[in-house]
């Protein structure tokens, strides 16, 4: 096994993929969340401003999903193949929802008829919410383990995927994105629209807190292998405590109108949720609920050492570049939304 800084390449790949999906959750998370709260904005102008707040960045945010998919395919081809084929219907729906959402964003502004705009507003909001839900459901199943046999073939049915634990994870993700998205929108708006979003973020924060507590309890009760990791290292119990403190602090920051800090706080919350999950499943990637011997681990599902080395080199060269583009983009469009003739 080749290593870099004394850590095996497979583990690096696990960390990289974790970081990319965290980046995706933080970035697409706020624009998906903006979609979830979209219908709670009542006026045409408000909705238009909200849409233009994500306008220049949502496409760049989705890139992280593409990079995540690419690195997962390259780094752990067996996990990529097994996960996507096992969750065939959910992933197909996820892809179609991504399309519907892109259509809604692009097409909403192209006509002025009331029904046209309402149609696309609803499509945008519903698809954004369901995308978050699907991602959460997949995440919940990954934590819980899925029915794969010794040949990495999924033996469960469609309904097994939508189990209560996975659905609870899905709802938690939706609430988190709604919080994250509404804070982003407050940052980009002003006056009465910002006040309304302030109120929406408060509600979203409360709903997320409730789901988060429920999910934590459910994990300890119904997902023994994840709980074991925590019982073995009780220090890890500070994570939920930190999460709840961060939530309170985020509310405080919003009240004090420190929106940028509040936005960074919910970004931190998002990555903390994923880090908790990564700790919970490491060194497994896909746990088999049939027999843990059938599970896909970092060791048995990674690409060849050569391939891992190549991809990690790409990431080392590419990640700083992507970071620079992203910062450039966000700096260019910093500040409140101003509509012009090129807006949606």
């Amino acid at each position, binding site marked *: 096994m080749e290593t870099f800084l004394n850590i095996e390449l497979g583990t690096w790949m696990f960390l990289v993929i974790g970081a990319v999906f965290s980046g995706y959750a933080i970035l697409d998370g706020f624009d998906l969340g903006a979609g979830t709260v979209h219908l709670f*904005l009542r*006026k045409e*102008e*408000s909705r238009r401003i909200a849409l233009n707040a994500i*306008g*220049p960045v949502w*496409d760049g945010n989705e*890139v992280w*999903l*593409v*990079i995540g*998919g*690419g*690195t997962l*395919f*390259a*780094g752990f*081809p067996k996990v*990529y*193949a*097994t*996960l*996507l*084929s096992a969750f*065939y*219907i959910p*992933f*197909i729906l996820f*892809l*179609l929802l*991504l*399309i519907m959402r*892109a259509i809604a964003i692009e097409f909403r502004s*192209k006509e002025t008829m009331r029904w046209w705009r309402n149609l696309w507003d609803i499509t945008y909001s519903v698809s954004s919410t369901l995308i978050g839900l699907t991602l959460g459901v997949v995440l919940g199943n990954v934590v819980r383990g899925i029915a794969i046999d010794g*040949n*990495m*073939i*999924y*033996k469960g049915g469609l309904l097994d995927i939508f189990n209560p634990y996975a659905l609870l994870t899905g709802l938690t993700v939706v609430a988190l994105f709604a919080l994250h998205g509404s804070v982003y929108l407050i940052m980009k*708006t002003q006056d*009465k*629209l910002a006040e309304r979003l302030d109120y929406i973020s408060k509600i979203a924060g409360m709903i997320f807190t409730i789901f988060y507590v429920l999910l934590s309890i459910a994990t300890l009760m119904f997902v023994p292998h994840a709980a074991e990791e925590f019982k073995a290292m009780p220090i890890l119990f500070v994570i939920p405590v930190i999460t709840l403190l961060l939530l309170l602090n985020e509310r405080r920051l919003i009240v004090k109108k420190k929106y940028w800090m509040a936005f960074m706080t919910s970004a931190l919350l998002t990555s903390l949720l994923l880090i908790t999950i990564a700790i919970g499943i490491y060194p497994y990637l896909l746990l088999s609920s049939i027999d843990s011997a059938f599970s896909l681990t970092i060791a048995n599902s990674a*690409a*060849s050492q050569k*391939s891992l080395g190549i*991809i990690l080199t*790409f990431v080392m*060269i*590419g990640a700083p570049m*992507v970071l620079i*583009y992203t910062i*450039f*983009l966000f700096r*260019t*469009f910093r500040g409140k939304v101003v*509509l*012009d*003739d*090129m*807006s949606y």
Partner: protein
Amino acid sequence: MDVEILSRIQFAFTIAFHYIYPPLSIGLGVALVVFEGMYLRTKDKHYEQLTKFWIRIFALIFGIGVATGIVMEFEFGTNWAAYSRYVGDIFGSALAAEGVFAFALESTFLGVLLFGWNKVSPKVHFFSTIMVTLGSMFSAIWIVVANSWQQTPAGFKIVGEGMTARAEITDFWAMVFNPSSVDRILHVWIAAFLAGTFLVLSVHAYYILKTRFVEQSKKAFGVILVIATISALAQLVTGHSSANGVAVNQPAKLAAFEGHYDSSAVADMYLFGWVDDAEQKVTGVKIPGGLTFLLHQDFKTPVTGLNAFDKNDRPGQVNFVFQTYHIMIAIGIALIGLTLLALFLWWRGKLFNQRWLMIVFSFSVVLPQIGNQVGWYSAEVGRQPWVVYGLLRTSDALSENVRAGQVMFSLILFTIVYLILFGLFIYLLNKKIQTGIASHGSDKKYASTNLISE
């Protein structure tokens, strides 16, 4: 229908639909760089109007390209799990490179291109336009590399046996520069330039016919016509070079292109024809020994025919491969004729008076589109029954747990959503074209709106 044929139909349908858009983005990107560059150099308002007009159309095309492109990346895993496990080591690294190096570049700078006109300086905006165009061309490199590896695998070894066999990378650069990569990248790029430039030519020919925005359209038509002509001619070169590569690396595919069965015979080249696969006979108009001449520069050397391969190792749909290949070539020749004629008339100062030619150009946008589609059909169907040529059969590449019913369900959904998408695309494209170049559309009244009451 079984799961294999359904999965193939679904993949073909989703990739064919997707492939309408990326070539248009690449070609339009080049046109945007030209228009914006001309504007920065000359400060001519017409070029500014052209740039802004085509940015709006670019946004529409790019958006659909991204949405339908993400589908492709995940469809390997959903429908072709065995394939993904087999080639992940190699194919995955190409896809990862595409995401990290190309897609990130184009999608990020797209934000500035679309929304940054009043936010950044003209030079920074121009730089963003160039980055988006380069990014989309880099994307094409990695995707075509991945596909070319399926056609002509190189730089790998096979590890394991039976169910667990998989290709592992041994030499990255040999994988990237596999025998067909360079020819095919150039062929795909130029095809994309043709797709984009002919969209521009079509729209401006239409404006000239309707006597709307005539000044701007004449300028746009002239400068883009030059690029289109060079591309059409260059495509002949890359096409020939590609075919030579196919002859060496995938002889069964080449034989299917011309319906050539007998390995001891000189190979003919058909202008058009019909293949009877059962009788192994082609009826049509041919240049006797034409294919032999193109490959070997003589009329004597025999060419490997389909009969040199076991029935299970060669494409089953010979006539389909033959037809698509010949339509592609016919379109390529037509584009050369059309652009050279227009260039000649332009030089003589008579181009824009030729009403009939402007009508032809108005509809010409469909030609490169059809050419791109059928070109890929012949390349991909010609590769069958292999998904990775000579290594992995398409029938062995499927997801083991996915059932025909599930694929039928997803295929129906894709069909419905894509048909809606296509309908909306055409509607909005037409609307933008009808709205025209100089006007900013109905949203202008919002332009200064800033303070909001909820």
